């Protein structure tokens, strides 16, 4: 089973040179830490920044420069700033090459649910609905199961849906999966030491296992 850090590491190895990328909060936000140095990619923040840099030094925190999680950040060389309409024009218009988001549930036809719910109240939709509907490539990073052990890879989402048929690839602590055009989770790789049987047992939706499924290799780029 992978740690959150290792899920992020595994996703990082999928990133291609020259991509514009949106990272959601949680595991996705860790991906930036594991990119090979020679890769030139740009991270977008939906509140109006292309080119998110690292967190600032303590003395350089600027209240006028935050990311979508309301954290103080910095810019990189070649950053640009814009308003919220432009930020989502970029997203909706398909200019972002890859979005990496967390999820509460994914269905076997690629639907996704990730409402932010607290004490029974939906407290927000944020920018996720725009992102998942944009047609950009969408990767999901999440634990394979809820804390109570029930699967998050389902036949149908049980919670309210945030996007339909939008997921291309899922990275969990157990393995890597793609969504088949006809529906179903195709197992591509399994985490070191995780058996196909365990994955089968923990996947509620249709799992497709074809040929040999190799254990993933993890490169530590930290």
């Amino acid at each position: 089973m992978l740690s959150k850090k290792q899920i992020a590491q595994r996703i990082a190895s999928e990133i291609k040179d020259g991509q514009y990328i949106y990272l959601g909060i949680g595991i996705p936000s860790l991906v930036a830490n594991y990119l090979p140095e020679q890769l030139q990619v740009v991270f977008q923040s939906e509140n109006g920044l292309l080119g998110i840099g690292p967190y600032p030094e303590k003395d350089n925190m600027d209240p006028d420069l935050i990311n979508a999680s309301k954290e103080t950040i910095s810019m990189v060389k070649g950053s640009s700033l814009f308003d919220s309409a432009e930020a989502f024009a970029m997203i909706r218009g398909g200019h972002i090459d890859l979005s990496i988001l967390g999820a509460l549930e994914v269905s076997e036809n690629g639907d996704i649910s990730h409402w932010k719910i607290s004490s029974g109240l939906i407290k927000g939709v944020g920018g996720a609905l725009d992102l998942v509907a944009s047609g950009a490539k969408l990767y999901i990073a999440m634990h394979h199961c809820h804390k109570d052990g029930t699967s998050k890879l389902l036949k149908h989402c049980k919670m309210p849906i945030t996007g339909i048929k939008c997921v291309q690839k899922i990275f969990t602590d157990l393995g890597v999966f793609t969504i088949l055009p006809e529906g179903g989770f195709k197992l591509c790789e399994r985490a070191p030491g995780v058996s196909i049987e365990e994955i089968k047992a923990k996947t509620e939706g249709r799992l497709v296992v074809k040929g040999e499924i190799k254990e993933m290799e993890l490169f530590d780029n930290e």
Partner: protein
Amino acid sequence: MINKTVKNGVEAVSDIENGAVLLVGGFGLCGIPEACINALLQTNLKGLTCISNNAGVDDFGVGLLIKQRMLRKLISSYVGENLEFEKQFTTGSLELELIPQGTLAERIRAGGAGIPAFYTPAGIGTHVADGKEVREFDGRLFLLERWIKADFSLIKAWKGDTAGNLIYKGTARNFNPLMASAGKITIAEVEELVPAGELDPNQIHTPGIYVQRIFQGDGYEKRIENKTVSK
């Protein structure tokens, strides 16, 4: 040039009436009109509708208007940081409408740009689509969304001139320029107000035509929600 200057926040908001619809700029606590919010707190206004991406926190930003029970309705994309909101919401004294952030931004932009409705893919297949027209273009499905306009827009910029031209800084720009265009009366507060002619026309983010009143605020707290630093 037309001079839009007013003395301060109190004068700027003095003709807002009970039940008015307000667009309030900012993302989280970044780029919020602190001086206008403080001026509103000195009034006895009730039943306001506030359209703002977030609800602030309990003791800052739009949260202060909620705490003083000045709002009847809140239209936002995410209100997770505000706990007082939850109390009023569950007792039914405060209504909430959640809108996907990109749709919220585009609806406000449409209000300013005279576009009464447009189609967007955001929300297809979700409860956001309930009751809305769905239409196919080029083989994909889209939702019809309407413009948003307001009686007043309260926005915050970094620099402004007496003609109402505005320049924002960093990610404090966010919803402010769109909201500037969608208010019947737009009130802009700035950290530095200069005479018309001192800002480079090429660098202006919000042309003065959208701004009816402008003033220089003071004592900006600019609270940071999540202080994060590199180790």
